[in-house]
C-alpha cells in the first residue's frame, strides 16, 4: 500500500497543516518509507490478542460531582493570541 501526492495532500488537510505542492511532493517518499516499514506488523500473528488499553492495570477513578475549579477567566485568556471582551477571538466562521 503506497500513498500518492493526492493522499499526502488529503492527510495534510485532515491534519490542518497547509503544505505547498513542493512540500507535499517531498513528503510522498518520506511517508511511504515510514509506512512501508511499519507495515511489517501485518505479518504478526495476533490471534487471541486483545488490543492494549492500559499498560498498568488501573481503575479509572470517579470524583465527586462538585465544582473544584473556575473563576480564572483572565488566566485562561492570558496566553491567547487574541482575546476580546473576555472571550477568545477568531476570524469570521460563517460567510
Amino acid at each position: 500500500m503506497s500513498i500518492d501526492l493526492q493522499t499526502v495532500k488529503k492527510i495534510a488537510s485532515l491534519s490542518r497543516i497547509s503544505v505547498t505542492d513542493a512540500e507535499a511532493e517531498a513528503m510522498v517518499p518520506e511517508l511511504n518509507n515510514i509506512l512501508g516499514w511499519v507495515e511489517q506488523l501485518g505479518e504478526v500473528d495476533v490471534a487471541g490478542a486483545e488490543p492494549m488499553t492500559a499498560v498498568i492495570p488501573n481503575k479509572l477513578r470517579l470524583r465527586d460531582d462538585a465544582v473544584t475549579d473556575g473563576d480564572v477567566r483572565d488566566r485562561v485568556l492570558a496566553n491567547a493570541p487574541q482575546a476580546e471582551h473576555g472571550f477568545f477571538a477568531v476570524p469570521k466562521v460563517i460567510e
Partner: protein
Amino acid sequence: MSNLTDLTVAEIRDGFRSGDFSAREVAEAFNANVAAAKALNAFIVETPEKALEAADAADKAKAAGEALKPLSGVPIGMKDLFCTEGVQTTAASHMLEGFKPTYESTVSKKLWDAGAGMLGKLNLDQFAMGSSNETSYFGNVISPWRRSGGDNAALAPGGSSGGSSSAVAARLCPAATGTDTGGSIRQPAAFTGISGIKPTYGRCSRWGIVAFASSLDQAGPMARTVRDNAILLETMAGFDPKDSTSLDLAVPQWEANLSSDLKGKKVGIPKEYRPDGLNEEIAALWDRGIEWLKDAGAEIVEVSLPHSKYALPTYYIIAPAEASSNLARYDGVRYGQRDLPDGAGLQDMYAATRAAGFGPEVKRRIMIGTYVLSAGFYDAYYTQAQKVRALIARDFEQAFEKCDLLLTPTAPSASFALGEKQADPLAMYLNDVFTVPASLAGLPAMAVPGGLDAQGLPLGLQIIGKALDEQTVLNAGLAIEERAGFTARPEKWW
C-alpha cells in the same frame, strides 16, 4: 573545598546540611557554569534568580533552625516540556514561543516544594520528538563530549532530553528532569555518560507536561549517580488526582533501600537484543555488565522476548497516532502562535498556524498519525499495533517469570555527529531499538554508564525491571556503577 559544581545531589544536600557551604554558594557556582556554557545551547531560558531565590530560602531556614526539605540547597535544570508558572514553556517549538503557563506542572511543583531551585528551562527535541536534539526550534544542543584524537565534530547529546543530558554531563546542573516516551531519558543519558531512570508508567504525574504520546509519556530524573536518581525520583513520583493514569500508590523509599547486593536475583539476558551486526564494543560492554552483575551476586539466565523486532514499528504507529490527537490542541486560538493570512477564515487560520508553528519532524509524525487513524486504515494500522503491543507486554511478563530484571545495551551506538542521521528519519528512529520495548510495556528502565568506546565516547547499559519494581532497577544500576568505576568526564572546550 572541592569545586561545588562537581558535587552530586546527595553531596550538595548533605554538605549544605552540615554547613560545609551555603545554598547560595552552590546556586552561584552553577549559575556561573550555566552562563559560561552558551556554546552547548542546553538552555532555552536561564533562571538564575529562581535558583538564588530557592537557595536564599534554604539558607534562611537553616539559619533559623527550621526543618530542612529533602532537596533544600539543590539547584536543578527543568526540561522545557514541564509547564512552569510565569516562565516560558515552549516544548522547543515555535508554536509555543512566548507561552507563559499560568500554572505549574505537578512534577516541577513537587520539586520546588521539596526545596529545589530552578537553574533554567532545558532545550529538547521539538515536542520531544527526536533522538539527537536536532529538531528544536531553538537550535541544536551540543554534547560536551568530543571524540578523542582532535576530531572537533559537534556530537549529538541524544534526544529528546538532550539539553538535560548535555547540562548534567557538563556540570551545568547536578541533576535535571527528563521525560521518556520511547527512550528520551535513557538514550541521551547513555550518549553523555550519565544515569537516568524512566519509572513505571503512572508513577509520575503527567499533569502540566506538554503531551506527546499520553500512553507512553513518563517523567524521570537524570543525574550523574544512581543515588541521585533515587533521591530525585522519590520527590517527583506520587499520586496526582489531576492525571487519570496516575497510580494511587505510596512512593517507596528508594534511596534508603539502595543496595548493590544482588544475591538471589536473577538477571535475564534477552537473546533478541543481540542481533547480527550489533556493534562489537557495545556487545563487549554488555558482556562486562553481565560479569559485574554476577560479581554482585546475581544469577544470569537467558530469556526470550520474541516480539522485540516489532517494537519499533509498533511504536511508530502508536506514538504518532497519539501525537496527532494531542497536538490538535494547537489551533492558534487559546495559546501559542497564530498565523492569520489576509482574508483567511477559521480553517485557513488553523492550517497556516500549524504550518508555521510546527517543525518538519512534528508535521511528519502528525501526518503519519492522522493517516493510521483515518477511516479505512484504523484497524490495519492502529488496532493491529495495539494488539502487537499487548504481545510485547506479554513477552516481558513471561520473561519475568524466569528472572527479576533484564540487562541490555541502552542504544545501538555511541553518540554520532550532528547532521549525520538527519537525512533519513528511519535511521534516526532505530536509535531507540533497545529502549522502546520497555516503554510500550510501561516498565521501569534505567540507563547507567558502563565505559568509553575506542573513540572516547560513553556507552550505557540498560536495566529493565518488573512493573513498580524501581528498587531492583536502581539496585542493579548501583551494582554496575560501583563496578564500572565510570569517572570519565568531558574535557571542557565550551
